[in-house]
Protein backbone atom coordinates (compact mmCIF):
# COMPACT_ATOMS: atom_id res chain seq x y z
CA UNK A 1 0.00 0.00 0.00
CA UNK A 2 2.87 2.31 0.84
CA UNK A 3 4.35 1.67 -2.60
CA UNK A 4 1.04 2.35 -4.31
CA UNK A 5 0.74 5.62 -2.40
CA UNK A 6 4.22 6.68 -3.44
CA UNK A 7 3.56 5.79 -7.06
CA UNK A 8 0.19 7.51 -7.04
CA UNK A 9 1.61 10.72 -5.60
CA UNK A 10 4.30 10.60 -8.27
CA UNK A 11 1.71 10.89 -11.02
CA UNK A 12 1.79 14.20 -12.86
CA UNK A 13 -1.89 14.87 -12.21
CA UNK A 14 -1.29 14.76 -8.46
CA UNK A 15 2.10 16.48 -8.43
CA UNK A 16 2.60 18.47 -5.25
CA UNK A 17 -0.64 17.39 -3.61
CA UNK A 18 -0.81 17.39 0.19
CA UNK A 19 0.32 13.90 1.30
CA UNK A 20 -2.70 13.74 3.60
CA UNK A 21 -4.92 13.87 0.51
CA UNK A 22 -2.73 11.23 -1.06
CA UNK A 23 -3.47 8.90 1.82
CA UNK A 24 -7.19 9.47 1.26
CA UNK A 25 -6.92 8.88 -2.49
CA UNK A 26 -4.88 5.72 -2.27
CA UNK A 27 -7.75 3.97 -0.50
CA UNK A 28 -9.81 4.42 -3.67
CA UNK A 29 -7.02 3.37 -6.04
CA UNK A 30 -5.99 0.18 -7.75
CA UNK A 31 -3.25 -0.65 -10.23
CA UNK A 32 -4.44 -1.66 -13.69
CA UNK A 33 -2.94 -2.96 -16.89
CA UNK A 34 -4.59 -2.90 -20.31
CA UNK A 35 -3.49 -4.82 -23.37
CA UNK A 36 -3.52 -3.17 -26.81
CA UNK A 37 -7.09 -3.12 -28.07
CA UNK A 38 -8.59 -3.53 -24.62
CA UNK A 39 -11.28 -1.04 -23.66
CA UNK A 40 -11.02 0.91 -20.44
CA UNK A 41 -14.71 1.72 -20.86
CA UNK A 42 -17.41 1.95 -23.51
CA UNK A 43 -19.87 4.70 -24.36
CA UNK A 44 -22.97 4.53 -22.18
CA UNK A 45 -21.35 2.34 -19.56
CA UNK A 46 -21.26 3.30 -15.89
CA UNK A 47 -18.58 5.87 -15.12
CA UNK A 48 -17.63 4.20 -11.90
CA UNK A 49 -13.88 4.67 -12.17
CA UNK A 50 -11.49 7.12 -13.74
CA UNK A 51 -7.92 6.56 -14.79
CA UNK A 52 -4.52 8.15 -14.44
CA UNK A 53 -2.22 6.81 -17.14
CA UNK A 54 1.23 5.76 -15.99
CA UNK A 55 2.51 4.29 -19.26
CA UNK A 56 1.10 3.65 -22.69
CA UNK A 57 -1.52 5.33 -24.82
CA UNK A 58 -5.30 5.45 -24.75
CA UNK A 59 -7.50 6.48 -27.68
CA UNK A 60 -10.84 8.18 -27.11
CA UNK A 61 -13.23 7.00 -29.80
CA UNK A 62 -16.65 7.98 -31.02
CA UNK A 63 -18.80 5.69 -33.10
CA UNK A 64 -21.07 6.66 -35.94
CA UNK A 65 -23.18 4.32 -38.06
CA UNK A 66 -21.71 2.90 -41.26
CA UNK A 67 -18.22 4.24 -40.76
CA UNK A 68 -15.17 3.31 -38.73
CA UNK A 69 -14.88 4.77 -35.23
CA UNK A 70 -13.31 8.23 -35.08
CA UNK A 71 -10.43 8.80 -32.70
CA UNK A 72 -10.99 12.24 -31.21
CA UNK A 73 -7.92 12.30 -28.97
CA UNK A 74 -5.14 10.14 -27.66
CA UNK A 75 -3.83 10.39 -24.12
CA UNK A 76 -0.53 9.24 -22.70
CA UNK A 77 1.58 8.99 -19.57
CA UNK A 78 0.78 11.63 -16.98
CA UNK A 79 -2.73 12.27 -18.28
CA UNK A 80 -6.14 11.38 -16.91
CA UNK A 81 -8.94 9.61 -18.72
CA UNK A 82 -12.55 10.46 -18.08
CA UNK A 83 -14.59 13.13 -16.33
CA UNK A 84 -18.08 11.60 -16.57
CA UNK A 85 -17.62 10.09 -13.12
CA UNK A 86 -18.16 13.62 -11.80
CA UNK A 87 -21.37 14.40 -13.62
CA UNK A 88 -24.71 12.62 -13.10
CA UNK A 89 -25.91 10.22 -14.38
CA UNK A 90 -22.27 9.00 -14.35
CA UNK A 91 -22.24 7.39 -17.82
CA UNK A 92 -19.33 7.48 -20.28
CA UNK A 93 -19.80 9.67 -23.36
CA UNK A 94 -17.28 7.83 -25.56
CA UNK A 95 -15.10 4.74 -25.73
CA UNK A 96 -11.59 4.62 -24.30
CA UNK A 97 -9.31 1.97 -25.75
CA UNK A 98 -5.69 1.15 -24.99
CA UNK A 99 -3.67 1.27 -28.21
CA UNK A 100 -0.45 0.05 -26.59
CA UNK A 101 0.38 -1.82 -23.42
CA UNK A 102 -0.99 0.60 -20.87
CA UNK A 103 -0.59 0.85 -17.13
CA UNK A 104 -2.88 3.10 -15.16
CA UNK A 105 -4.24 3.87 -11.75
CA UNK A 106 -7.97 3.27 -11.52
CA UNK A 107 -9.71 5.48 -8.96
CA UNK A 108 -13.08 4.25 -7.76
CA UNK A 109 -15.56 7.00 -8.53
CA UNK A 110 -18.06 6.32 -5.76
CA UNK A 111 -15.28 6.12 -3.20
CA UNK A 112 -13.73 9.34 -4.47
CA UNK A 113 -17.02 11.24 -4.65
CA UNK A 114 -17.81 10.23 -1.07
CA UNK A 115 -14.41 11.39 0.16
CA UNK A 116 -14.72 14.67 -1.74
CA UNK A 117 -18.18 15.22 -0.25
CA UNK A 118 -16.88 14.45 3.23
CA UNK A 119 -13.79 16.63 2.88
CA UNK A 120 -14.40 19.72 0.79
CA UNK A 121 -10.72 20.63 0.92
CA UNK A 122 -10.01 17.40 -0.92
CA UNK A 123 -12.93 18.09 -3.26
CA UNK A 124 -11.61 21.56 -4.03
CA UNK A 125 -8.11 20.19 -4.59
CA UNK A 126 -9.45 17.65 -7.08
CA UNK A 127 -11.57 20.23 -8.89
CA UNK A 128 -8.61 22.62 -9.03
CA UNK A 129 -6.62 19.95 -10.83
CA UNK A 130 -9.39 18.62 -13.03
CA UNK A 131 -10.76 21.91 -14.32
CA UNK A 132 -7.61 23.06 -16.19
CA UNK A 133 -7.40 19.67 -17.88
CA UNK A 134 -11.02 19.88 -18.98
CA UNK A 135 -10.58 23.47 -20.20
CA UNK A 136 -7.47 22.55 -22.19
CA UNK A 137 -9.32 19.65 -23.79
CA UNK A 138 -12.31 21.82 -24.61
CA UNK A 139 -10.02 24.37 -26.24
CA UNK A 140 -8.26 21.63 -28.17
CA UNK A 141 -11.62 20.28 -29.35
CA UNK A 142 -12.54 23.77 -30.55
CA UNK A 143 -9.30 23.98 -32.52
CA UNK A 144 -10.02 20.59 -34.06
CA UNK A 145 -13.47 21.82 -35.05
CA UNK A 146 -11.88 24.68 -36.99
CA UNK A 147 -10.33 22.21 -39.42
CA UNK A 148 -7.42 24.62 -39.76
CA UNK A 149 -5.49 22.46 -42.20
CA UNK A 150 -8.29 22.22 -44.69
CA UNK A 151 -7.81 25.40 -46.69
CA UNK A 152 -4.25 26.60 -46.44
CA UNK A 153 -1.52 27.15 -48.97
CA UNK A 154 2.14 28.06 -48.66
Amino acid at each position, binding site marked *: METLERLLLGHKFLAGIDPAFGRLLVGCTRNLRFAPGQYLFREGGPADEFYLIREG*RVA*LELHAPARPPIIIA*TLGAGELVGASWLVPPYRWGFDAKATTDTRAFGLDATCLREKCDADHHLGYEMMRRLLPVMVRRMQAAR*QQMLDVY*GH*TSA
Partner: protein
Amino acid sequence: MSAAQQSSPADPMRPAPWRVRAVRRETADVATLDLEPLEGGVPGFAPGQFNMIYAFGIGEVPISLSGDPADPTRFMHTVRAVGAASAAIVAAAPGSVLGLRGPFGSAWPVDAAEGLDLLIVAGGLGLAPLRPAIYQVLAASERFGRIAVLYGGRGPAELLFRDELAAWGARADVTVTVTVDHADPSWHGHVGVVPALIEHVGFDPSNTLALLCGPEVMLRFTATALRGAGVAAERIFLSMERNMKCAIGLCGHCQFGADFVCKDGPVLPYDRIAARLAVREI
Protein backbone atom coordinates in the same frame (compact mmCIF):
# COMPACT_ATOMS: atom_id res chain seq x y z
CA MET B 1 22.98 40.68 -46.86
CA SER B 2 20.37 37.99 -47.33
CA ALA B 3 20.58 35.14 -49.79
CA ALA B 4 17.67 36.76 -51.62
CA GLN B 5 19.63 39.92 -52.24
CA GLN B 6 22.62 37.94 -53.40
CA SER B 7 20.78 35.72 -55.79
CA SER B 8 17.86 37.62 -57.28
CA PRO B 9 18.18 38.46 -60.94
CA ALA B 10 18.81 42.02 -61.99
CA ASP B 11 15.10 42.54 -62.55
CA PRO B 12 13.31 40.87 -59.64
CA MET B 13 10.00 41.20 -61.46
CA ARG B 14 11.10 39.10 -64.44
CA PRO B 15 10.25 35.41 -64.11
CA ALA B 16 13.03 33.12 -65.28
CA PRO B 17 12.13 29.86 -67.02
CA TRP B 18 12.59 26.72 -64.92
CA ARG B 19 11.93 23.18 -66.08
CA VAL B 20 10.05 20.68 -63.99
CA ARG B 21 12.50 17.84 -63.60
CA ALA B 22 10.35 15.57 -61.45
CA VAL B 23 7.08 15.63 -59.53
CA ARG B 24 6.32 13.70 -56.36
CA ARG B 25 2.70 13.39 -55.33
CA GLU B 26 2.64 13.90 -51.58
CA THR B 27 -1.11 13.76 -50.94
CA ALA B 28 -4.28 13.99 -53.00
CA ASP B 29 -3.79 17.72 -53.62
CA VAL B 30 -0.14 18.35 -52.75
CA ALA B 31 2.89 17.77 -54.94
CA THR B 32 6.59 18.49 -54.61
CA LEU B 33 8.23 19.82 -57.75
CA ASP B 34 11.91 19.40 -58.50
CA LEU B 35 12.93 22.36 -60.66
CA GLU B 36 16.05 23.21 -62.67
CA PRO B 37 16.83 26.55 -64.34
CA LEU B 38 16.93 26.92 -68.10
CA GLU B 39 19.06 30.07 -67.71
CA GLY B 40 22.10 30.22 -65.43
CA GLY B 41 22.67 28.34 -62.22
CA VAL B 42 20.60 27.61 -59.17
CA PRO B 43 20.71 30.56 -56.77
CA GLY B 44 21.51 29.92 -53.15
CA PHE B 45 18.70 30.24 -50.65
CA ALA B 46 18.21 30.30 -46.92
CA PRO B 47 15.64 28.06 -45.19
CA GLY B 48 12.36 29.93 -44.86
CA GLN B 49 12.61 31.88 -48.10
CA PHE B 50 10.13 31.62 -50.96
CA ASN B 51 9.90 31.98 -54.71
CA MET B 52 7.15 33.41 -56.87
CA ILE B 53 6.14 30.64 -59.25
CA TYR B 54 4.30 31.51 -62.42
CA ALA B 55 2.05 29.14 -64.31
CA PHE B 56 2.23 30.94 -67.64
CA GLY B 57 -1.04 32.54 -68.64
CA ILE B 58 -2.75 31.55 -65.40
CA GLY B 59 -1.12 33.25 -62.46
CA GLU B 60 1.74 33.58 -60.03
CA VAL B 61 1.83 32.42 -56.41
CA PRO B 62 4.38 32.57 -53.57
CA ILE B 63 5.69 29.14 -52.64
CA SER B 64 8.26 28.42 -49.95
CA LEU B 65 11.34 26.44 -50.81
CA SER B 66 11.09 22.95 -49.34
CA GLY B 67 14.36 21.35 -50.43
CA ASP B 68 17.84 21.08 -49.00
CA PRO B 69 19.67 24.41 -49.01
CA ALA B 70 22.95 22.49 -49.33
CA ASP B 71 21.85 21.01 -52.66
CA PRO B 72 23.07 23.41 -55.40
CA THR B 73 21.42 21.52 -58.26
CA ARG B 74 17.71 22.18 -57.81
CA PHE B 75 14.87 24.02 -56.19
CA MET B 76 12.17 21.98 -54.49
CA HIS B 77 8.71 23.39 -53.96
CA THR B 78 5.83 21.69 -52.21
CA VAL B 79 2.52 23.06 -53.44
CA ARG B 80 -1.12 22.49 -52.58
CA ALA B 81 -3.76 22.99 -55.26
CA VAL B 82 -6.08 25.60 -53.79
CA GLY B 83 -6.67 27.96 -56.74
CA ALA B 84 -6.19 28.17 -60.48
CA ALA B 85 -2.47 28.99 -60.39
CA SER B 86 -1.50 26.55 -57.65
CA ALA B 87 -3.62 23.82 -59.27
CA ALA B 88 -1.80 24.38 -62.57
CA ILE B 89 1.56 24.17 -60.79
CA VAL B 90 0.58 20.97 -58.98
CA ALA B 91 -0.55 19.53 -62.31
CA ALA B 92 2.69 20.47 -64.10
CA ALA B 93 4.21 17.45 -65.77
CA PRO B 94 7.94 16.66 -65.85
CA GLY B 95 9.48 18.57 -68.73
CA SER B 96 7.07 21.47 -68.55
CA VAL B 97 8.32 24.98 -67.86
CA LEU B 98 7.27 27.37 -65.12
CA GLY B 99 8.32 30.97 -64.43
CA LEU B 100 10.21 31.61 -61.23
CA ARG B 101 11.30 34.75 -59.36
CA GLY B 102 13.31 34.69 -56.19
CA PRO B 103 14.33 33.63 -53.65
CA PHE B 104 12.76 36.32 -51.54
CA GLY B 105 12.17 37.09 -47.90
CA SER B 106 13.63 36.47 -44.49
CA ALA B 107 15.00 33.18 -43.21
CA TRP B 108 14.63 30.95 -40.18
CA PRO B 109 17.25 32.05 -37.62
CA VAL B 110 18.85 28.61 -37.48
CA ASP B 111 22.26 29.92 -36.47
CA ALA B 112 20.74 31.76 -33.50
CA ALA B 113 19.54 28.40 -32.16
CA GLU B 114 23.04 27.00 -31.82
CA GLY B 115 23.64 25.95 -28.23
CA LEU B 116 19.92 26.09 -27.49
CA ASP B 117 17.16 23.52 -27.46
CA LEU B 118 15.29 23.80 -30.74
CA LEU B 119 11.58 23.19 -31.25
CA ILE B 120 10.39 22.97 -34.84
CA VAL B 121 6.61 23.05 -34.88
CA ALA B 122 4.71 22.56 -38.12
CA GLY B 123 1.07 22.22 -39.05
CA GLY B 124 -0.27 20.89 -42.34
CA LEU B 125 1.58 22.25 -45.33
CA GLY B 126 3.72 24.25 -42.89
CA LEU B 127 6.18 21.39 -42.74
CA ALA B 128 7.34 22.27 -46.25
CA PRO B 129 8.86 25.70 -45.42
CA LEU B 130 10.48 24.16 -42.33
CA ARG B 131 12.00 21.19 -44.11
CA PRO B 132 15.05 23.16 -45.34
CA ALA B 133 15.70 24.25 -41.75
CA ILE B 134 15.38 20.65 -40.57
CA TYR B 135 17.92 19.55 -43.19
CA GLN B 136 20.29 22.29 -42.09
CA VAL B 137 19.90 21.50 -38.39
CA LEU B 138 20.24 17.74 -38.79
CA ALA B 139 23.40 18.20 -40.86
CA ALA B 140 25.05 19.75 -37.79
CA SER B 141 22.92 18.54 -34.91
CA GLU B 142 25.84 18.57 -32.49
CA ARG B 143 25.65 22.36 -32.48
CA PHE B 144 22.22 22.34 -30.87
CA GLY B 145 20.76 21.12 -27.61
CA ARG B 146 17.72 18.90 -27.74
CA ILE B 147 16.01 19.01 -31.13
CA ALA B 148 12.30 18.26 -31.44
CA VAL B 149 10.05 18.28 -34.48
CA LEU B 150 6.32 18.49 -33.72
CA TYR B 151 4.03 18.06 -36.68
CA GLY B 152 0.27 18.15 -36.87
CA GLY B 153 -2.05 17.40 -39.76
CA ARG B 154 -5.69 17.06 -40.53
CA GLY B 155 -5.55 13.28 -40.85
CA PRO B 156 -3.05 10.55 -41.64
CA ALA B 157 -3.67 10.80 -45.40
CA GLU B 158 -2.81 14.50 -45.41
CA LEU B 159 0.60 14.21 -43.72
CA LEU B 160 3.58 15.34 -45.77
CA PHE B 161 6.98 13.67 -46.07
CA ARG B 162 6.00 10.57 -44.11
CA ASP B 163 9.10 8.65 -45.15
CA GLU B 164 11.34 11.44 -43.99
CA LEU B 165 9.43 11.89 -40.75
CA ALA B 166 10.03 8.22 -40.03
CA ALA B 167 13.71 8.52 -40.92
CA TRP B 168 14.18 11.59 -38.74
CA GLY B 169 12.29 9.89 -35.92
CA ALA B 170 14.69 6.93 -36.06
CA ARG B 171 17.64 9.19 -35.35
CA ALA B 172 19.00 9.59 -31.84
CA ASP B 173 19.60 13.32 -32.16
CA VAL B 174 16.04 14.43 -32.82
CA THR B 175 12.61 13.66 -31.36
CA VAL B 176 9.78 13.59 -33.87
CA THR B 177 6.16 13.65 -32.71
CA VAL B 178 3.32 13.58 -35.20
CA THR B 179 -0.32 14.18 -34.38
CA VAL B 180 -3.50 14.42 -36.41
CA ASP B 181 -6.79 16.15 -35.71
CA HIS B 182 -8.86 13.06 -36.47
CA ALA B 183 -8.18 9.45 -37.37
CA ASP B 184 -9.75 6.05 -37.55
CA PRO B 185 -8.39 3.14 -35.49
CA SER B 186 -5.95 2.14 -38.23
CA TRP B 187 -3.84 5.11 -37.09
CA HIS B 188 -1.60 4.23 -34.15
CA GLY B 189 -0.09 7.65 -33.53
CA HIS B 190 -1.20 10.68 -31.58
CA VAL B 191 -4.57 12.34 -32.11
CA GLY B 192 -4.98 15.91 -30.94
CA VAL B 193 -3.81 19.40 -31.72
CA VAL B 194 -0.17 20.44 -32.01
CA PRO B 195 -0.11 22.88 -29.07
CA ALA B 196 -1.16 20.03 -26.77
CA LEU B 197 2.09 18.23 -27.60
CA ILE B 198 4.27 20.94 -26.15
CA GLU B 199 3.78 20.02 -22.51
CA HIS B 200 5.02 16.51 -23.30
CA VAL B 201 8.25 17.54 -25.02
CA GLY B 202 11.42 17.67 -22.98
CA PHE B 203 13.09 21.05 -23.38
CA ASP B 204 14.50 23.84 -21.24
CA PRO B 205 12.12 26.75 -21.86
CA SER B 206 14.66 29.30 -20.69
CA ASN B 207 17.11 27.98 -23.25
CA THR B 208 14.89 27.23 -26.24
CA LEU B 209 14.29 28.68 -29.68
CA ALA B 210 11.14 27.72 -31.57
CA LEU B 211 10.33 27.83 -35.29
CA LEU B 212 6.62 27.69 -36.17
CA CYS B 213 4.88 27.33 -39.51
CA GLY B 214 1.29 26.45 -40.28
CA PRO B 215 -2.18 27.93 -40.40
CA GLU B 216 -2.36 31.18 -38.47
CA VAL B 217 -4.80 29.82 -35.90
CA MET B 218 -2.42 27.00 -35.12
CA LEU B 219 0.47 29.48 -34.90
CA ARG B 220 -1.41 31.62 -32.39
CA PHE B 221 -2.29 28.73 -30.12
CA THR B 222 1.17 27.20 -30.39
CA ALA B 223 2.91 30.48 -29.59
CA THR B 224 0.59 30.91 -26.61
CA ALA B 225 1.42 27.42 -25.39
CA LEU B 226 5.14 28.09 -25.76
CA ARG B 227 4.84 31.37 -23.86
CA GLY B 228 2.89 29.53 -21.18
CA ALA B 229 5.71 27.00 -20.94
CA GLY B 230 8.18 29.83 -20.42
CA VAL B 231 9.78 30.29 -23.87
CA ALA B 232 10.75 33.93 -24.45
CA ALA B 233 8.68 35.73 -27.10
CA GLU B 234 11.81 36.93 -28.89
CA ARG B 235 12.89 33.32 -29.34
CA ILE B 236 9.69 32.26 -31.09
CA PHE B 237 9.67 32.73 -34.87
CA LEU B 238 6.65 32.36 -37.13
CA SER B 239 6.36 32.13 -40.89
CA MET B 240 3.45 34.35 -41.87
CA GLU B 241 1.25 34.06 -44.89
CA ARG B 242 -0.35 36.98 -46.64
CA ASN B 243 -1.35 37.91 -50.17
CA MET B 244 2.09 38.37 -51.69
CA LYS B 245 2.18 39.75 -55.23
CA CYS B 246 5.33 41.72 -56.09
CA ALA B 247 7.48 39.93 -53.46
CA ILE B 248 9.79 42.94 -53.10
CA GLY B 249 7.81 45.24 -50.81
CA LEU B 250 6.44 47.59 -53.46
CA CYS B 251 2.82 46.71 -54.07
CA GLY B 252 1.61 46.55 -50.47
CA HIS B 253 -0.70 43.57 -50.92
CA CYS B 254 0.99 41.66 -48.11
CA GLN B 255 1.16 44.50 -45.62
CA PHE B 256 0.88 43.18 -42.07
CA GLY B 257 0.87 46.17 -39.79
CA ALA B 258 4.26 47.84 -40.08
CA ASP B 259 5.75 44.96 -42.08
CA PHE B 260 5.50 43.67 -45.59
CA VAL B 261 5.40 39.90 -45.26
CA CYS B 262 7.23 39.43 -48.57
CA LYS B 263 10.17 41.64 -47.67
CA ASP B 264 10.31 41.81 -43.86
CA GLY B 265 8.99 38.26 -43.51
CA PRO B 266 7.76 35.69 -44.08
CA VAL B 267 9.72 34.65 -40.97
CA LEU B 268 9.02 37.14 -38.21
CA PRO B 269 9.73 37.14 -34.46
CA TYR B 270 6.69 36.63 -32.26
CA ASP B 271 7.49 39.54 -29.96
CA ARG B 272 7.21 41.87 -32.97
CA ILE B 273 3.89 40.60 -34.26
CA ALA B 274 2.08 39.10 -31.26
CA ALA B 275 -0.19 42.10 -30.77
CA ARG B 276 -1.03 42.20 -34.49
CA LEU B 277 -2.07 38.54 -34.53
CA ALA B 278 -4.98 39.51 -32.29
CA VAL B 279 -6.18 42.26 -34.65
CA ARG B 280 -8.76 40.78 -36.98
CA GLU B 281 -8.65 43.66 -39.45
CA ILE B 282 -4.98 43.12 -40.35
